[in-house]
């Protein structure tokens, strides 16, 4: 452990059975075992979870923030993609 900063890990916690794991933050750790233990200590002190996932932050692939307009803006004017765009005839009932 001669490196000054330990690798970063992203932490995902499942609050209850049946829910999905949600990203809660990150921890430093030298390996997966320590990452789980650190995540337990940092993020489940108040009974927040029943399951922990950790993923090396370096393994997360993210989009380039500069691509934001080309990636996301085209969706803005396509309101017909939202279910609320359509009027449901009374006779259909619940769908």
């Amino acid at each position, binding site marked *: *452990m001669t490196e000054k900063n*330990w690798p970063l890990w992203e932490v995902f916690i499942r609050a209850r059975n049946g829910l999905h794991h949600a990203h809660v933050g990150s921890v430093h750790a030298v390996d997966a075992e320590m990452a789980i*233990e650190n995540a337990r200590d940092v993020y489940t002190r108040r009974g927040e979870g029943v399951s922990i996932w950790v993923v090396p932050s370096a393994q997360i692939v993210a989009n380039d923030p500069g691509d934001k307009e080309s990636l996301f803006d085209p969706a803005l004017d396509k309101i017909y993609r939202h279910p609320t765009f359509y009027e449901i005839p009374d006779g259909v009932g619940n769908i």
Partner: protein
Amino acid sequence: MVSATSELLPLADGCLILSHRLSEWMSNAPTMEEDIALGNIALDLLGQARGLLQVIGDETGVTEDELAYFREPQEFRNPLICELPNGDFAFTMARQLFVDIWLAHVWSELAATASDEQVRGVAEKAIKENAYHRRHSSSWVVRLGDGTDESRRRMETATEALWPYRGEIADDRWYDAVDAALTEATLTMPPRDAWTQRSSLDGWHTEHLGYLLAEMQSLARAHPGATW
């Protein structure tokens, strides 16, 4: 002077004093994550100490706070190893492993055999907490013992420095467990028959306990009965 005698006192005081020692790491641990881990362990130990001090207090007609904050050093029965100053991180982790192994045996025995229901309850909760503490301390002993030249040197130094203070907590089962943990860390356990202190059983302590209590007890003594 507040005083009490109980078979549980070495255990209760051991948890209380070690909890205070660990709390001294707050804001000083090697990483933020480790800072929180040590705080969690200190709080677990404090909860265990409280559970037992309540039982002892009920037997002797005093409160847990009186037992914790108004006894003199010679009234404490914590194993000497718990009161030793923290030293470096290797020393703290080796000490923690030694004490965790002792506590693992004590708690499982109490959970199975204690006649007092409240004591059994404290022990059952402590077994789960202790399992985590032991995983934490043993993994650090392995990382440091089987790590770099410097971390190994520190872990060897810590083990040797702690060895004369195992007297009150060591038995055959303890030696076997410590031997296994140190072997995994590629370290050699010092001889079982080497000399050791065990004077806390008679109320004799190292010079360090007085300073620890001076800090731990000062607030309660300056403001007796204060609440928040």
